[in-house]
């Protein structure tokens, strides 16, 4: 790979939305204020499992509030997450119901002219409850025979009767595991578990909805998926899609919490339709914590290897406590197998996954979608195998990882594709050098209060979910690119940028293709009326799939432009080239070999307009037929205080194989952010429940829900980021993704650094100081 031939890729430019964001002028959903707008409040269950016997709105109504309950919302079943195809979509959700399945489950809402009045009206609603037994653990849920959390759900349109609170199951098998394990010289088996982390995006999920005079609505929601939101709401509320406009608006962080349409969006719409007025709901932080969290995991993992370190067989059994609803647990069960299978070659493998309903907050995607969960166990197991076999942990990884020329199916068994670029060895070797891998301590000989440890883990994420044959997940992006009469270019697409620089990357690709200065490429405001479908910005697909689609459409628009230019310059299209002229601040089109024969983009576009030839414009829907692995490695140095159990992160060397890196500073920022969230996941973050009341133990308070702060992270000088020198041939100008890969191996790397310091393998996250102390005291080598 070489960035030299590029004018813009691999170079830093001020991000296009930067000025708005540093001056406070960026508008987020919670910043939309409309004339005559009502403020909504959601009524939520105080009980983990209950049914509503009666509900009395009379006092709220007398205060002048608009009141809404399950009695006046559509009763259709649906799934909030719309990225899977219908045949793989379980539907157990309704806008509002009388059956409360968790503390915080909504049963109604009120709206009033001021927030204060809305709060008073909400407080005045009286409810009579019928208590049901609650199931706060997988075991309790599986033992239930009646009063289930869901009795009937739908798969596409087929009714499914739920048994023992099992939401769904999934099995995958390849080869012959029994035979495989017989061939193994060593077998390592453990149970791993990872916590229910709260996304804690800084802006609570919110929505503003305005009813329109034509019977339609306009929406400003917190979402990662404009079109899926539109299609779902159109279906539930029976609104024609051409009257239902969802506006792209920056969200204050998502991390996966906006792939599905948030319940607050549905309730805001229902209130707006009922009142005929614009309605705004901004959730409180506490409400937000009862709204969504990361899928936890608990799984046994058994892997067998030959003496030389070659893996021969693996078996994994996972049970997932999904909480009160299905936000696509079926695909989650599929990716658990996929991440595992695609980390290391395993000729014989067996996987069984089960998703179980409990009376807890519903779980959904969060950065990594199962990959950090699985990578934690797999990477820990790889180190255990390496130790047993006396092989260096890096060597055993190099021997077994799934790389160049191999088939992988990271996004689950239905999304298979071939690997065309692979920087894994480079990442491992450079990371090892930067951290001083050779000189890492031997845990057996360490003494003293403060012990140093160096840990390493690798991982990947798919760049999107494209594959040669469409699987269970939808994946395409629609875009429009046009050349304006001053030589500037507009990109129109429903693709979203959650802060990582996705849209800037798309603009750079277009600038590069047309040979125009970066400043000349603009990102148009987008909404669902003006754009075609885009599945959503998730699955690390933004640059590779979204940017890739924009680039392909730009090439079509360029063809039109060059055809106009060929008429003007009187030269065949095939002889025309473009390049930026930075002095002119313009792109120019010239005849190759005859540089004096040239014309600016502006002149070409103007001439085409004045001669009535038209605009150089193109639009299209593009699906990528691949989803290359974006590999990452983390090498981490920690210091463990053996007297307090405190872990201090000293140094980090983060390596990323993102193909051609488009925005270097922003890409490094992805690794910083991924590390921070991954380290919190490894060391402190978890939502725990009071099993009696069903309440979150943190009571919806951020200070009780512990996260790492700046003081817990290494100094900028001690955080090194480097990129592999690769080129992804199927990617837009050689690029692939980075986003989720930036987190996936982090918890494993930290756990293994702690192991290197203490000699103890930790199999449960988060690894709290008290857990470390206890294990040290008990002299364990594995806990």
């Amino acid at each position, binding site marked *: 790979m070489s960035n030299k031939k590029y004018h813009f890729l691999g170079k*830093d430019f*001020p*991000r296009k*939305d*930067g*000025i*708005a*964001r*540093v*001056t*406070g*002028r*960026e*508008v*987020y959903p*919670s*910043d939309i*204020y409309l004339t005559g707008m009502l403020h909504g409040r959601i009524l939520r269950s105080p009980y983990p499992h209950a049914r509503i016997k009666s509900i009395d709105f009379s006092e709220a109504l007398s205060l002048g509030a608009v009141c809404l309950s399950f009695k006046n919302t559509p009763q259709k079943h649906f799934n909030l997450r719309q990225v899977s195809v219908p045949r793989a979509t379980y539907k157990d959700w309704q806008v509002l119901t009388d059956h409360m399945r968790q503390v915080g489950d909504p049963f109604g809402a009120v709206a009033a002219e001021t927030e204060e009045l809305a709060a008073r009206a909400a407080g005045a609603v009286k409810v009579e409850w019928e208590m049901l037994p609650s199931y706060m653990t997988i075991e309790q849920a599986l033992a239930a025979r009646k009063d289930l959390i869901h009795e009937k759900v739908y798969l596409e349109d087929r009714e499914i009767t739920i048994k023992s609170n099992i939401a769904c199951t999934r099995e995958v098998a390849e080869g012959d595991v029994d035979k495989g394990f017989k061939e193994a010289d060593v077998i390592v088996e453990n149970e791993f578990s990872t916590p229910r982390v709260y*996304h*804690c*995006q*800084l*802006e*609570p999920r919110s929505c503003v909805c305005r009813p329109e005079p034509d019977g339609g609505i306009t929406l400003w929601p917190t979402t990662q998926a404009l079109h899926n939101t539109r299609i779902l709401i159109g279906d539930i509320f029976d609104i024609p899609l051409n009257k239902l406009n969802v506006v792209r608006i*920056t*969200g*204050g*962080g*998502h*991390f996966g919490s906006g792939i599905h349409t948030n319940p607050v969006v549905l309730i805001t719409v229902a209130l707006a339709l009922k009142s005929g007025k614009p309605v705004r709901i*901004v959730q*409180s*932080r506490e409400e937000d914590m009862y709204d969504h969290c990361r899928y936890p995991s608990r799984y046994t993992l058994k892997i067998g290897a030959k003496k030389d370190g070659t893996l021969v067989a693996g078996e994994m059994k996972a049970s997932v406590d999904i909480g009160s609803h299905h936000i696509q647990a079926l695909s989650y069960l599929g990716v658990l197998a996929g991440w595992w299978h695609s980390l290391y070659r395993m000729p014989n493998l067996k996987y069984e996954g089960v998703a179980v309903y409990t009376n807890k907050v519903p779980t959904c995607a969060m950065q990594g979608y199962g990959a950090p969960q699985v990578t934690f166990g797999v990477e820990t197991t790889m180190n255990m195998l390496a130790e047993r076999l006396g092989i260096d942990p890096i060597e055993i990884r190099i021997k077994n990882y799934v790389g160049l020329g191999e088939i992988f199916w990271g996004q689950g068994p239905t999304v298979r594709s071939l690997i065309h670029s692979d920087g894994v060895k480079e990442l491992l070797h450079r990371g090892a050098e930067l951290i001083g891998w050779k000189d890492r301590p031997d845990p057996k000989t360490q003494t003293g209060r403060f012990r140093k440890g160096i840990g390493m883990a690798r991982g990947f994420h798919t760049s999107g979910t494209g594959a040669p044959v469409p699987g269970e997940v939808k994946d395409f992006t629609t875009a429009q690119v046009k050349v304006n009469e001053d030589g500037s270019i507009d990109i129109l697409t429903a693709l979203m940028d*959650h*802060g*990582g620089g996705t849209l800037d990357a798309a603009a750079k690709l277009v600038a590069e293709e047309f040979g125009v200065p970066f400043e000349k490429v603009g990102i148009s405001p987008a909404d669902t009326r003006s754009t075609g479908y885009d599945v959503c910005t998730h699955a690390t697909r933004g640059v590779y799939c979204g940017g890739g689609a924009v680039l392909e459409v730009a090439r079509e628009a360029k063809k039109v432009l060059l055809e106009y230019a060929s008429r003007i310059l009187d030269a065949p299209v095939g002889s025309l080239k473009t390049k930026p002229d930075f002095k002119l601040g313009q792109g120019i089109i010239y005849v190759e070999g005859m540089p004096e024969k040239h014309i600016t983009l502006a002149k070409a576009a103007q001439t085409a307009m004045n001669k009535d030839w038209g605009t150089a414009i193109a639009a299209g829907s593009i699906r990528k037929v691949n989803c290359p692995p974006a590999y990452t490695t983390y090498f981490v140095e920690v210091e463990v205080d053996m007297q307090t159990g405190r872990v201090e992160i000293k140094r980090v060397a983060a390596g990323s194989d993102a193909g051609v890196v488009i925005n270097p*500073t*922003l890409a*490094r*920022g992805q690794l*910083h*952010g*991924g*590390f*921070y*969230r991954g380290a919190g996941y490894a060391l402190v973050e978890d939502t725990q429940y009071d099993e009696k009341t069903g309440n979150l133990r943190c009571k919806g*308070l*951020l*200070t009780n829900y512990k*996260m790492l*702060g*700046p*003081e817990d*992270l290494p*100094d*900028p000088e001690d*955080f090194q980021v480097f990129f592999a020198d690769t080129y992804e041939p199927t990617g837009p100008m050689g690029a692939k993704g980075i986003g989720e890969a930036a987190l996936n191996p982090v918890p494993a790397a930290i756990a293994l650094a702690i192991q290197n310091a203490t000699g103890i393998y930790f199999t449960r996250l988060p690894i709290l100081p008290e857990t470390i102390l206890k294990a040290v005291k008990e002299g364990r080598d594995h806990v």
Partner: protein
Amino acid sequence: MRIPIVLKVNGKEHSIEVKPNEILLNVLRDKLHLIGVKYGCGIGECGACTVILNGRAILSCQTLAVSAAGREITTIEGLVPEGNKELHPLQEAFIEEGAVQCGFCTPGMILSAKALVDKNPDPSNSAIKEAIRGNLCRCTGYINIIKAIKTGAEKIRERSKR
């Protein structure tokens, strides 16, 4: 009951009436339309609502509007005087160093940084970490924010030499 007060925000005086229990955050957003002051929790846990009050970074969701009457309030909108096309050096540095991702924490973060560098023109890593402890950023992992505050402080020092 409504109390007439004068709020001095970004160099401008606003005569308004507020209830005794009205929170500064709501007044700034709802009455003065300063949406750069963000709501992230409303209970003093995230720092998104940070403004500068008489030179100190404070949480506007933990401050009664009446108690801010007559004192100098700076929000992100007032970081550079109105009509000035240039950005504040900290704002420039936040963009250059990649310290802005979703941007929701950015206004509060920049104001905490400004309150710091006004007092300590060459802050160390640990002084910066201390100053932004109350400002949650879920996106960036703080690394580029720390770099940006250093770069911004350096730009301010350079400019004051000129």
